[in-house]
């Protein structure tokens, strides 16, 4: 089930009530597991076997690592976990991609192959929970985390429904210990959770779903539109994917808070970044830090000469791109971001902008504004590859932008959606120093005024919500 559905609106209060009605820790964790399996099985109950399998394998490997001291055997156990998890991911996500490209490569040599492609359904969330369980076994292997003996707590950690299907990818060191201690209901935390859920729904239903209708029209008929319209389509896609993905994260984090859990921030207002390095510190933080800690640093990170740094940077970005989907467009998207990032890395300017842009001021400086706009432009260009059907489509799209019609009036100009995006961006700008834009909004107001704000947002959701679209990251 998806967050913005009636099914979830019925599911959540029931689970909330059952969860807080019981007092025993183990019982609460068990409710989390059952609820999470119901949540996940709502899509397709057959895939419950995969998540259960991954859970059992990594729990067992964790237990074995706790008693195994021989380095070689420990390494074997680690690689079994990696093999199982990446094997599942590789099969379900990449089998047909590799097969088709293998066949294409052979055909270049005049050999025609006719292998069987399989009708494989991609299990929702597999890219997320496999990475989450891998973080557990790797941390246990590195002796940075004590392996758990509590299977229910571990199963709850792996399957935790708020973040199961589209993240944030939680580290075991952050989330698993929260299942060990009794969680008391915290009124402020729960209210804050509801506020974050509301903001997440606004991002998804008002911003992302409205932008999606325009994006789909423009990208599907990109050959017929002027350069200015194509720019509009690309910019709208930037808002669609941000609203969709960060909205989901907000709902996930807010929902977790209702149950007393604290998940990590996954998006820190990335479109206000002044350079691409800052962007990647603020976009899908849980994935980029996962790749940093488990791939980049083991490869040598930024140590060594420029050659190694360039190699590692490309590996990280391309793998990250490939993680998103079995299509060359994602690989190109990743490579493009690597090209953006490298000059900063090689000149040691990748950590120039660590604080929030414009500090506590409302207006940025001219230099900051230009940096933000330039970085946004670069990411929008890269997003074209992310959204396009294939690399050829993306190249044609970009070619269409840089044509004589770039400065003409767009054929499509959805003023309503534009107004929503402008209003949304201003709200995000004002709240950019917080966990989410409206975290502190209205907290000092009189309760009646605050409730008017909430009512207004709820009715904005109902009145301005676009045609329901799937969450983009569900396909990953």
């Amino acid at each position, binding site marked *: 089930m998806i967050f913005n559905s*009636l099914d979830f609106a019925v599911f959540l209060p029931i689970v909330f009530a059952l969860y*807080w009605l019981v007092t025993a820790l183990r019982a609460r964790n068990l409710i989390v597991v059952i609820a999470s399996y119901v949540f996940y099985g709502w899509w397709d109950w057959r895939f419950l076997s995969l998540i259960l399998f991954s859970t059992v394998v990594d729990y067992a490997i964790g237990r074995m690592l706790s008693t195994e001291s021989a380095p070689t055997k420990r390494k074997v156990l680690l690689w079994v976990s990696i093999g199982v998890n990446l094997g599942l991911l590789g099969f379900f996500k990449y089998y047909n991609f590799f097969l088709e490209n293998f066949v294409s490569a052979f055909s270049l040599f005049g050999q025609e192959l006719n292998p069987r492609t399989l009708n494989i359904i991609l299990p929702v969330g597999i890219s997320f929970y496999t990475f989450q369980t891998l973080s557990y076994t790797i941390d246990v292997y590195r002796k940075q985390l004590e392996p758990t003996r509590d299977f229910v707590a571990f199963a709850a950690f792996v399957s935790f429904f708020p973040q199961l299907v589209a993240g944030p990818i939680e580290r075991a060191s952050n989330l698993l210990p929260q299942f060990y201690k009794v969680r008391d*209901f*915290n*009124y402020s935390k*729960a*209210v804050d959770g*509801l506020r974050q859920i509301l903001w997440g729904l606004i991002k998804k239903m008002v911003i992302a779903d409205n932008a999606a209708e325009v994006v789909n029209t423009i990208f599907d008929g990109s050959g017929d539109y002027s350069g200015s319209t194509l720019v509009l389509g690309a910019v709208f896609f930037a808002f669609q994917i941000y609203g969709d993905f960060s909205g989901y994260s907000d709902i996930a984090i807010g929902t977790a808070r209702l149950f007393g859990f604290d998940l990590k921030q996954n998006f820190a207002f990335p479109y206000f970044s002044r350079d691409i390095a800052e962007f990647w510190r603020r976009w899908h933080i849980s994935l980029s830090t996962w790749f940093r800690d488990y791939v980049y640093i083991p490869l040598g990170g930024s140590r060594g000469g420029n050659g190694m740094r360039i190699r590692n940077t490309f590996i990280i970005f391309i793998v990250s791109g490939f993680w998103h989907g079995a299509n060359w467009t994602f690989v190109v998207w990743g490579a493009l971001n690597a090209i953006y990032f490298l000059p900063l890395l090689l000149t040691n300017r990748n950590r120039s902008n660590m604080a929030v842009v414009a500090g506590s001021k409302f207006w940025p400086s001219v230099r900051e504004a230009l940096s933000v706009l330039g970085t946004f432009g670069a990411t929008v260009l890269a997003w074209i590859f992310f959204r396009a059907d294939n690399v050829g489509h993306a190249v044609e799209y970009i070619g269409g932008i840089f044509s004589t019609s770039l400065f003409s009036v767009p054929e499509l100009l959805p003023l309503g959606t534009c107004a929503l995006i402008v209003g949304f961006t201003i709200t995000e700008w004002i709240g950019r120093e917080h966990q989410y834009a409206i975290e502190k909004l209205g907290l000092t107001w009189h309760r009646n005024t605050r*409730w008017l704000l*909430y*009512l207004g947002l*709820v*009715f904005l959701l*109902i*009145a*301005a*919500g676009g045609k329901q679209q799937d969450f983009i990251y569900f396909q990953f």
Partner: protein
Amino acid sequence: MGPIKQFSIKVSVFLALVVALFVLIAGVNAIYVSNTAFKLKEQQHVLVLGDSNTKCAFDESEYPSCANLSKAADSYFYSYLRLKKLVAENPGIDTLLLGFAPHNIFDNKRHRANEYLYSRVNKYYFLMNAEEVGFMWNQNPGGAAYGALAIVKQSLTNLAAVPKDGRALLDAYGAYGPLDRQILDEDVERLHRGEGLPFFNLPDTMAVSPTAMEYFDRIVSFCDERGIKLYLVNTPKRAELLAYPDYGVDVFNSYYDANYAHIDYLDFSDLPLAEEQYADLVHVHKSGAQYFSRMFEEQGLPALMQRYGRPTKP
């Protein structure tokens, strides 16, 4: 008071406020729409109801005594809801021209789809009694529930709409829709290749839909009780479609003969129009609508019945 109890009470109160505001907006919308969208002009005593076939075929400017409140993809259920309201608001209506073609009587699962219900619940909620709400709910509870959520959005759209041609909310509740496209050749090609048509769904089955005919029967009874003369109308269609086996013309004609032969049926399906007067296989172009509508204005219904009526049995 414990924190959970405090939290639960506050959330419940907030949700109650949301529901109250929702009901208020829905109520204001119902009153507004009731008093605007269903008022016809005095001279409009012939009502046209149906789906896109009749929607594009009856041009009110050529046939001023008709009010065309057909709506694309409509089923007889929604036509019935509109009929009741229109007759209540316009006692001068004495004739109903009701779209009647093979695809109207066969089961159509699209009428139960989420999107379909989503676009209709928010427009018809105040026109339904409890039984009709139950009927709609049984079609697809999830779709109906989603459609209910769209009431606020539709209400705000309605309240902001500018009345046109003396009638507000044109097309939300049906209106003449002239068609400019002319894709007849492409449609014929698609039909020959067995492909789907862009603006029309061929019937999935030749099984007559009991639910569709339930409300067709209610329309018949309604007209009978109120002394409204009912004509069934099959608007012009291309010969290629009429001859297509999966369109079901023979099954349809047999069904009419067996069950509704006592109702006047104007069969214009094979009316010879020029090619450019068709928009596609099943809809007329606006030039075809002008010609077709003028026929009604100039010849009148009794004369048309003599010429184009399918033989009826008393």
